[in-house]
């Protein structure tokens, strides 16, 4: 089967129906293992037990950014290639990415109070992450308020591409500016600075969250395709009544 065959919504729905149970099972197993390892991980020598918040905060941050990257690629598909599923993929990623960004901000705030002594500072990393959440809300507003879905899709695609500028700002904010937020500690050229006893559960939790994201994304895409079918059938029904 060629990749282009996935562009057919009916075939895509058939594939989603087949892979979703496996994705759900894998996600559940990964969360069971990840949470067990996270909750039994040793305390950090400086932060104590609050390091357990890291197992939620860091994967949520990665996936909040991953969601926007996915929307940017989908935006290219919508604007350049007019791929039938590109807009569906972009629209489906927005609420999930927004939810993960929200989790990142709230858990970061709850982690900041005991470790920094404050829930919030207008630091470059925190502010750029808040901007990401606001961008997500902007895209969702464009999708939900557009009277004509096509116009909403194009506007959302343009905002997705423009908003992609924020991704390197988030990533490198801790290097470009003097921030309260710590610099990168997992993916570094010189290797991770996190002890393996904390790094292993973090990576398992990151994998679990990634599977959750992919599972939800495919399920929301399926719902969106069905919603468009309903709309198309209602239009046909209205035309028949008028004729």
């Amino acid at each position, binding site marked *: 089967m060629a990749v282009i065959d996935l562009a057919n919504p009916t075939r895509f729905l058939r594939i989603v129906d087949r892979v979703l149970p496996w994705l759900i099972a894998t996600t559940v197993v990964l969360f069971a293992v990840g949470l067990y390892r996270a909750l039994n991980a040793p305390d950090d020598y400086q932060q104590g*037990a*609050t390091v357990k918040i890291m197992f*939620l905060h860091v994967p949520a941050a990665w996936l909040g950014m991953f969601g926007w990257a996915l929307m940017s690629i989908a935006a290219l598909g919508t604007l350049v290639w007019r791929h039938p599923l590109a807009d569906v993929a972009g629209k489906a990623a927005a609420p999930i990415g927004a939810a993960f960004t929200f989790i990142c901000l709230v858990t970061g705030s*709850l982690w900041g109070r005991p470790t920094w002594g404050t829930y919030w500072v207008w630091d470059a990393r925190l502010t750029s992450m808040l901007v990401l959440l606001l961008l997500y809300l902007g895209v969702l507003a464009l999708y939900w308020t557009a009277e004509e879905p096509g116009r909403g899709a194009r506007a959302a695609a343009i905002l997705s591409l423009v908003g992609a500028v924020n991704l390197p700002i988030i990533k490198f904010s801790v290097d470009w500016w003097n921030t309260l937020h710590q610099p990168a500690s997992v993916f570094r050229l010189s290797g991770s600075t996190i002890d393996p006893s904390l790094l292993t559960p973090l990576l398992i939790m990151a994998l679990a969250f990634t599977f959750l994201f992919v599972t939800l994304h495919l399920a929301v895409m399926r719902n969106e395709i069905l*919603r468009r079918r309903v709309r*198309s059938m*209602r239009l*046909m*029904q209205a035309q028949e009544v008028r004729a």
Partner: protein
Amino acid sequence: MSLGPHADFIVAAYAVTLFVVAALIAWVLLDYAAQRRVLGNLEELGVTRRSQREG
């Protein structure tokens, strides 16, 4: 497992995450059920999509 003096913050972080993820899953499931129901009703009324007619 001891959560130390900042247990409230740890529990709150896990509770918020659980709530948001559960809300997302519930929304997806309810939306799927709603779309299937409406599609079923339209099909019962004999309404078809253009692509189905052409096929």
